[in-house]
Structure formats: C-alpha cells, structure tokens
C-alpha cells in the first residue's frame, strides 16, 4: 500500500457509533415529578413534599417567638429561684409543657388539614354534564346545591366552582389557601394553616397545653415575685402571660364546647344547627348525643390519611393522565417486553 499514512482519528467519525446509541439516551425517562410540584392550591411544600404550609404563614413566627421567648425567660430567671425555694419539679413540668406546646403547634401548622384534591377534568365534565342537562344556559348558572338527608336532617351540599365537585358535608373552601378542606373549622392565622379534619386534634392539644403552660408560668412568676419581696425579673413573662391567658383560656373553653357537641367553628358561627325553626328540633345531625362519645370521636377517632398524596409521582408527560391504571400496569409493561414484540406477529397470523 503506497498511502499507508496514519490519519488522525476524526473525533466526528467517532461520533457516529455514539450517535447510534442516541435513541437510547433520548429515550431516557425524564425526571418524574411529584404531585406537590403541580399542586393547584396556595400552599408551600418543603422537604420534597413532606412538609406542607399555607402560603401565608400568618403570624406563626410571632406565635412561636412569643412562646419561646416567654419560656426561655421563665427558665432563665424564675426557675433558679423557685428550684432553690420550692421544688425541682418546676422546671421539669415547665419543660414538658413547653415541649408539648411546641410539638403540637408545629404539627398543626405543618400537617395537611384535610385538603380535598380537585376533581380531574373527566370527573368534572361528568358532574357538569349532570348539572347542566336540565336547560342549556350560556351564562354561568347560580351555584348548584344538592340536598341530602343525614339523620333525618336536610343538609345542602354546595358545588365548588374552583374544585369542580360537590363539597362533602362539613367541607368548606378556604379562600386563603384556595382549597376545599374537610370538616373545616377555621383558618387560624396564629398557626398559619387551616384547621380541619386531620389537624383539629393537634390544634386542640396545642391550645389546651398552651393554656396550662401560660397558667403555669403565670403562677410561677407570681409566686416568684411574691416570695422575693424586693422585686425580681419577671415582668415580661408576667405581662405576656396575663394577656395570653384570657384569650387562650377562652379559646380552649370554646373549643371544648365545640368538641363536646361535635360542632365546627364554621358551623357555630353560621348557626347552621341552631334551632331557627322554633319548636322543630333542627339539631346537629353529626352529634352522637353523648359528650363523651363526641369527644372521643373528634379527638381520638381514627387518623384519616392525607388525600392529596403530595409525594406521589405524576404520570410521565407522554402518557396522557387518563387513569391511574396506567401506573399500575407499567410494572407489567417492564416485565413483558417480548410480549409486545410478539403481538403484531400473532395478530398477523390470526
């Protein structure tokens, strides 16, 4: 061979074998997104969807700040004196109460209150078809209601235009969070979240433990100032506790009444079950007619799961979001590749 000179290997030539593998790399599955990333409501998510917060945190930082500052001042200034003069149990009890308060507060704020996921397009179309079959109107019709009978009591279910579904009983749409929340109590700015079915027990334990905590600190500080007749460092705690006690104790009392009668703040304020019709007993259809059972059902009932499935994966974009059956069967798809290839041939022969 005359021209057997070595030619520099062309990097582009090398590219061709690589490009034959390109389809494989192009076929790589795009990062599957989790459902919290496309959540339509006004919520914020942290830790990859594990923690949920309302968009407006309200005055949660203030609440936490007040509790922490008051407790720290108490431990720093009152406890040393009271330990030497009274008993060592005081900081222990204070510590336990403080922990309880903070944990309950964080659980109330960071838990899904019972948000109902919005209806999927197919579902919404099915319901709207049922609503609008009677008379075709071009303008937006008045809100549709559906009347049902619960415990011989007529209850109206309203259609939610945002979530495109008939709201279950006791569900209300929170405008701040833009979500329908089950057993909606109220949106609490102090905890920066709605209070609903799933976090009502946390909220209740928060306000009750906070009542005990503020009363305890108040009592201790008063004792401290009384025992130490020539003044002491307790004014800040005293003032904060004095003003908190009235509101927190009052709120605890109110919620104890609600729990005992199986009512929500929303229903109580609207007067849904107050006897407006005079003699006719239009009572609460959800009550068990026993204070003990009402309390147990509300506070110790089974813990319902979160319905929004924030850490679940969305189906990949190329597969239309038809049914979740797609995801179920994807595992079978992966297993039986040969079957796919075999299909056309078997169809051919038959």
């Amino acid at each position, binding site marked *: 061979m005359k021209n057997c000179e070595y030619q520099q290997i062309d990097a582009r030539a090398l590219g061709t074998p690589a490009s034959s593998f390109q389809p494989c790399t192009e076929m790589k599955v795009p990062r599957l997104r989790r459902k919290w990333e496309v959540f339509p409501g006004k919520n914020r998510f942290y830790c990859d969807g594990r923690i949920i917060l309302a968009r407006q945190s309200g005055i949660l930082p203030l609440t936490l700040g007040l509790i922490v500052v008051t407790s720290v001042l108490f431990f720093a200034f009152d406890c040393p004196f009271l330990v030497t003069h009274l008993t060592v149990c005081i900081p222990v009890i204070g510590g336990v109460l403080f922990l309880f308060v903070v944990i309950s507060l964080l659980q109330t704020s960071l838990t899904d209150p019972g948000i109902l996921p919005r209806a999927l397009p197919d579902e919404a179309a099915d319901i709207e078809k049922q609503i609008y079959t009677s008379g075709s109107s071009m303008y937006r019709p008045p809100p549709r209601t559906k009347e049902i009978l619960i415990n011989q009591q007529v209850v109206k279910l309203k259609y939610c235009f945002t979530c495109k579904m008939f709201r279950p009983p006791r569900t209300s749409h929170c405008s701040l969070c833009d979500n329908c929340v089950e057993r909606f109590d109220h949106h609490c700015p102090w905890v920066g979240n709605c209070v609903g079915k799933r976090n009502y027990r946390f909220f209740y334990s928060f306000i009750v433990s906070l009542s005990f905590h503020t009363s305890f600190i108040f009592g201790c500080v008063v004792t401290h100032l009384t025992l130490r007749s020539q003044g002491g460092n307790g004014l800040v705690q005293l003032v904060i506790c004095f003003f908190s006690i009235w509101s927190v104790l009052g709120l605890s009392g109110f919620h104890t009444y609600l729990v005992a009668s199986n009512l929500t703040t929303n229903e109580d304020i609207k007067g849904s079950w107050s006897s407006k019709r005079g003699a006719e007993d239009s009572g609460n259809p959800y009550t068990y007619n026993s204070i003990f059972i009402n309390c147990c059902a509300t506070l*110790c009932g089974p813990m319902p799961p979160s319905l929004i*499935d924030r850490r679940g994966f969305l189906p990949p974009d190329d597969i239309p979001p038809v049914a979740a059956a797609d995801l179920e069967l994807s595992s079978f*798809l992966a297993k039986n590749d040969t079957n796919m290839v075999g299909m056309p041939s078997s169809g051919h022969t038959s």
Partner: protein
Amino acid sequence: MAETHILQDLQHQAAIASKVYVQRDYNSGTICKFQTKFPSELESRVDKQQFEETMQTLNNLYAEAEKIGGKSYLEGCLACMTAYTIFLCMETHYEKVLKKIARFIKEQNEKIYAPLGLLLTDPIERGLRVVEITIFEDRSIGFGR
C-alpha cells in the same frame, strides 16, 4: 398470570370508550361510603349483583377503617400522650385498611372486571371522591392467549 395478561391486553389494545363515576353516599353522614346503585352504562357489561357486591364490600372495608371503637381510642390516646409523634413511626389503622382495600380492588379487577373490559380505580387515587370505572371498547380480547 393469565389475569395480568388480560389487564395488559386491555391497556395495549383497547381504547377507552367511556368512564363511569360512582359518587359518594352521604346519607349516613361524613363516613366514606359509595353509592351501590348500579350505573346504567354498565348494564351490558357486568352482572348487577356482582357489582353491588363489590361496592358493598368496599363500603364495609371503609367502615372498618373509620370505625370508632376500643382500638381506635387506644391508638388515639397513645398518640395524644406521645404528642402525636408516634404517627411518624407507626402506620395508622386507617392506612393498614387502605392497603387491604388496594389489594381487594386489584383482585377484583384481575378476576372479574378486566375480563369484561372494565377497570376499577382505587378511590384513594381520586381523593375518596368517586369510584372511577373505565369502560374499554368491546373489541374481542382474544389476542393474547
């Protein structure tokens, strides 16, 4: 395996004809219960008795999940005493029953509904609002044998 074969056939070959939604029944309050009324769209596909039995079993399972009794009180009190931190490590009774429901629906699909060209969707995937029944087009499902 034959049943999963049929499910897969459905997915690959059959097109979705329509979907039927079975709504919640709130007549007993806020507990999770679905209407057992037989939808007219399924009349040609499945036996009414069979469908109602499936729905009734489903309702019973949800009732079991939400039952307020000694066990749920114990769980609630224990949780309260540990400031509800026990929920971080323990699976609640409700979650255990939800897994049971998922298995039940899968079994019903494989044994009864897929051969008839239907597919039940677990209500938890629809936020416990509806039971979605997908009706596949009635082509002959005799492809994969």
